């Protein structure tokens, strides 16, 4: 079974802090994704990566950056956290780039910015 592990289930940070969310997958998947989940808005794509050191912006990249130095690890960075970034963050991985291959999700990090 594919396992996608997000380093924290709950995280509380202060406005202006630099925040790191970590995600690790154990199946040698090429593609990795970061989403945020908000009630009534579904899952919105922040950034994704097709391979090591490669990244592409999703629908809502403002205020975020990412890092993928190793194939199994994809980090989401909030450069200067703001209260409107309080949300559930979900990481996912996918074996290849074809659209019909399933994305495997972690259990999420609930981030609160005070």
């Amino acid at each position, binding site marked *: 079974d594919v396992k*996608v592990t997000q380093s924290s289930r709950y995280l509380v940070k202060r406005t202006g802090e630099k925040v790191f969310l970590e995600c690790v997958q154990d199946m040698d998947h090429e593609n990795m*994704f970061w*989403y945020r989940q908000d*009630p*009534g*808005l*579904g*899952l*919105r*794509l922040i950034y*994704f990566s*097709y391979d090591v050191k490669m990244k592409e912006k*999703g629908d809502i990249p403002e205020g975020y950056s990412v890092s993928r130095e190793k194939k199994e690890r994809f980090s989401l960075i909030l450069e200067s956290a703001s209260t409107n970034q309080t949300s559930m963050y*979900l990481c*996912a991985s996918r074996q*290849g*780039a*074809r*659209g*019909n291959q*399933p*994305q*495997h*999700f*972690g*259990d*999420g990090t609930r981030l609160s910015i005070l």
Partner: protein
Amino acid sequence: QQQVKQSPQSLIVQKGGISIINCAYENTAFDYFPWYQQFPGKGPALLIAIRPDVSEKKEGRFTISFNKSAKQFSLHIMDSQPGDSATYFCAASYFTSGSRLTFGEGTQLTVNP
């Protein structure tokens, strides 16, 4: 701009009933339509998916109906069970390489015993 619209936002069904969740999309280039199921405290997981060359796909109690001309597709859960209580997301993407998913807003389904 939301390219995939999902309704209803929440749904309450009695055990044994039929749950129906609807989605509409705008981009006619989409050619892969999956549904994801999310239980509380867990990430979403792929439930069932369809391509537009068929009008219906069934897996157990779960059926996707697809109407290409109307740009709509729906999930039917037959004989709904309390264990089906979850949030359901429809999504759309391109079948080809480099594709990413566009999700609907989600439907919180509650099946009462």
